[in-house]
């Protein structure tokens, strides 16, 4: 470890110091300082983002070797920078979303943000992890923070139940993941993805390794909520405070996808024959179970949970196809999906009155009359999730569908497109409630932070839907190095 290595970690270092400071701030400032917590968190995020930008300018170079520090265990390459920026942006939005329910003063504010900041640290490690152990530690940091956050309504039974479920299942899945990692280590003699890639390239077949890959995949599938590792999702989304549900369905998922992409593209691409068909079945099941499950839900949060299961399936198309289109699709889709989702969660928050009130689809009836702008934004977000142009969601879905077709998974592509048509059925249920039914006159709590979030999400969703070029190009640049590892020049055509 040298001093230059420290630069790689500078954003994470600052972030974790900041997270610790958030924790001790109320001791110094007392309870009255609660209002400052949000600003402190936003400031911390801004500083982290800035440091990240500066460090990336210093570190990123055309020479891929120079973007790795700590004996190539940690990479600050364009791939991880893309995800880190996404995480920070999403986390900023989550902070704005949290303002409302924390302001009620029933739950401690500073610890909440501190936990969020630690979760972010974990995610940033995941995005940068070049070694399975780095990835595992980042994942655990994220998971432990999430367990606590899911139970943050500690006076509510549902929230505690959610946290408990999430914790127990999460702990088991971590164990499975770790077991998978140990098997891979046993076969390859290294935790480092590059060494794993080298080792696997000389292996013809190896049952222990395949077993290890399956276990590793299962652990990650738990995180992205893919079938059959999805059962926790609806309960946790419903029980957890709404901003935390938003966090779990966007940032946490994006982090898991960054790991998925990195591990399978960089480390395990030579064994794709062994894992791609299994993942294809998981993807198909996720799309089917998620979309069909969502149809019958009357609780919006539950519906969004099933929809997020389905979207995990779409995301997996990008892993399975193992192509440039595929990895670009993952980056694009996580971003597009995160923004559409955040917009919807913000609207759900606006409808919220006490802990769980205002979350039924019926509660949205007649919203178009009372809040025309919000309803319009909601329609755009829902269309984006459904992949209808001219929203950004279509561009994301286009990439993933195209990747599946190109990789020869015709049957999977057919399931994917038909299921995305099915998904419009339940997304439209919300539209029906908002526009086509006369409302009960429930009040809505439109606050400035929510307005900021929805406007930002709307701009992103529409802008990248109509003019996708800048985003598409950025994604291609960010994914290039990771894709190059998996697709050496021999397969350049793919």
């Amino acid at each position, binding site marked *: 470890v040298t001093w230059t290595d420290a630069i790689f970690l500078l954003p994470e270092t600052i972030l974790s110091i900041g997270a610790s400071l958030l924790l001790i701030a109320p001791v110094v400032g007392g309870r009255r300082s609660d209002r400052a917590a949000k600003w402190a968190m936003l400031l911390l995020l801004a500083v982290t983002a800035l440091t990240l930008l500066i460090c990336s300018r210093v570190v990123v170079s055309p020479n891929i070797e120079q973007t790795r520090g700590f004996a190539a265990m940690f990479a600050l390459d364009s791939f991880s920078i893309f995800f880190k920026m996404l995480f920070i942006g999403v986390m900023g939005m989550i902070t704005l979303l949290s303002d409302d329910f924390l302001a009620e003063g029933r739950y401690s504010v500073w610890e909440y943000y501190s936990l969020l900041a630690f979760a972010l640290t974990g995610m940033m490690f995941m995005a940068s992890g070049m070694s399975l152990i780095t990835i595992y530690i980042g994942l655990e940091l994220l998971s432990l923070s999430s367990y606590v956050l899911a139970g943050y309504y500690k006076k509510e039974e549902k929230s505690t139940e959610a946290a408990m479920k999430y914790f127990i299942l999460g702990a088991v899945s971590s164990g499975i993941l770790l077991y998978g990692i140990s098997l891979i280590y046993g076969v390859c003699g290294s935790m480092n993805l590059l060494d794993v890639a080298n080792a696997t390239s000389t292996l013809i077949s190896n049952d222990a390794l395949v077993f290890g890959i399956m276990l590793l995949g299962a652990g990650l599938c738990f995180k992205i909520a893919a079938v059959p590792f999805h059962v926790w999702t609806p309960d946790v989304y419903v029980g957890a405070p709404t901003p935390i549900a938003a966090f779990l369905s966007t940032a946490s998922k994006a982090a898991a996808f960054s790991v998925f992409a990195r591990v399978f593209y960089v480390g395990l691409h030579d064994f794709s024959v062994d894992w791609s068909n299994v993942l294809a079945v998981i993807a198909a099941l996720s799309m089917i179970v998620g979309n069909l499950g969502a149809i019958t839900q009357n609780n919006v949060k539950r519906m969004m949970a099933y929809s997020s299961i389905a979207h995990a399936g779409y995301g997996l198309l990008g892993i399975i196809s193992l192509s440039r289109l595929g990895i670009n699709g993952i980056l694009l889709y996580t971003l597009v999906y995160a923004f559409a989702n955040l917009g919807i969660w913000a609207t759900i928050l606006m409808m919220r009155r006490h802990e769980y009130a205002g979350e039924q689809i019926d509660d949205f009836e007649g919203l178009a009359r009372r809040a025309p702008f919000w309803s319009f934004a909601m329609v755009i977000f829902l269309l984006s999730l459904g992949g209808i142009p001219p929203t950004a969601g279509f561009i994301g879905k286009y990439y993933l569908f195209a990747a599946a077709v190109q990789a020869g998974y015709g049957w999977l592509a057919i399931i994917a497109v038909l299921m995305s048509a099915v998904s419009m059925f339940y997304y*439209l249920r919300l539209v029906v409630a908002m526009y086509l039914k006369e409302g009960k006159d429930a009040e809505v709590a439109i606050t400035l932070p929510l307005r900021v979030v929805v406007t930002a999400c709307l701009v992103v969703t529409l802008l990248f839907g109509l003019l996708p070029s800048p985003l598409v190009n950025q994604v291609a640049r960010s994914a290039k190095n990771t894709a190059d590892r998996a697709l050496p020049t021999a397969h350049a055509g793919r």
Partner: protein
Amino acid sequence: MGIGILNWVTYIPLIGALVIVFFIGKDKHKAIRYTATAVALVDFLASLYLWFNFDPKATGSHMWQFYEKYDWIPSLGVKYEFGIDGIALLLILLTTFMGVIGVVCSYSAIEHRQKEYYVLLLLLQTGMIGTFCALDFFLFYVFWEIMLVPMYFIIGIWGGPRKLYAAIKFFLYTLAGSVLMLLSILGLYFFNSSGIPLLNIKGLGNAATFSVLQMHEIGHLIPPQLQIWLFAGFFFGFAIKVPMFPFHTWLPDAHVEAPTAGSIILAAVLLKMGTYGFVRFALPILPDATRAWLPWVAGLAIIGIIYGALVSLVQKDMKKLVAYSSVSHLGFVMLGMFALNPMGLRGSVLQMINHGISTGALFLLVGIIYERRHTRMISEYGGLAKQMPMYATIFLIAALSSMGLPALNGFIGEFVILLGVANASIVYASLASVGIVLGAAYLLWLYQRVFWGPLDNPANRNLLDVNRRELITLLPLVALMIWIGIAPSTFFDKIEVPVDYIVRKVDPHYFDAKPMMATTKPASARAAVVAVAEAAK
């Protein structure tokens, strides 16, 4: 390069919609209506510019006129490519024309949430025109999907009692078809560029593009086995939209529940998207598959013709009757198209326009009586001819045009289609002609029950005849029926070049193999007219 006329025609309604959204208050109903009317009129005038500046003789790459091309998503090879041939020209004019009528006929029918209504109507128009203009598959798909959303709202908000069911059925059916079409588009895209190695599909290695014209060039190179699959995707996308039997079940629901203007636009333009899709994409790009699928498509078309007519015969609801008659008429359009000869295709394209005008007029007429009586049940009426003579006269003309009486537009379309079909297969033609007889039956029977007989329902005693505004919407339609009926060559001339182009794409040797046809070809449109005139005597 400035913004071309096609873009203006496409986006004038959008601009108008935005103006209404941002500058006109929710309660200023008159201002909203008049602005919407003005926008629709300006758009119609702009499309007339296309009509007068269109060169029907231009061939080759010049066939695509008012052509524009910009980069959109360069890394995917997606271009913003606009251009029209004669077929698209006619359909665009139909769209803008029906757009004006749709706006004007809604004045009294739509009473609540007027602002949203007219905004959606205008947005829908942008989507429809864009679909006809797009020469890039990606762009086409975007417009194709954009159309769905406004129509969904129009049915869902201002529809009848079962509007929610009808709206969602319409949306999901069409969406399911169009996503399958997207897969076929992707298949074409990869075939043109890198291929799909894992399915043993070797690509051509061209630069990645979604250009429709490029696909027209490479269509015949696609191995037949792959073509059949790609055709399947397009077939589902378009056949649901047409709608062909057995994918038609969304149509009666959507038509019956939609407000009058929604029905008119649905019948006149949206259904044509499906047939247009076949003409523009499926046929010229996938010639082998077209021939392979021909018996199936033709069979379904004939079933549609007869089934649609039989079901119309037993309807108790006028609007439902007209809706099912669409299934029958669109069967003719499909059958004529799959005759795969210039005559059949010509008739097919003209019949698209005819159906838009006649069925549009019938929906408009049903809407007028519904506004007065709030029922569409045939049994509620009788003897209206005495009470509403003008209405009865126009209804008669529209019905006669729809059933194909000589000297009106429907006859020309059906006759030319049957000529073409008979040329290809006499069996198909004789089966299809059953549909014409049935068509006359259900329309005349409808007319008899509604307009003749004693005026015995007291509720009908005080019905007012058509007013001036309604007359303004009806008379242009009647004029068009007669115009196309007696001078169809104005319209045939516009589509001659693109029709021959498509026939040549489907069968490159069509004109070589039959030297007789080749020599008579330039006059064949006129020949059809002569034949029509003689038959009329």
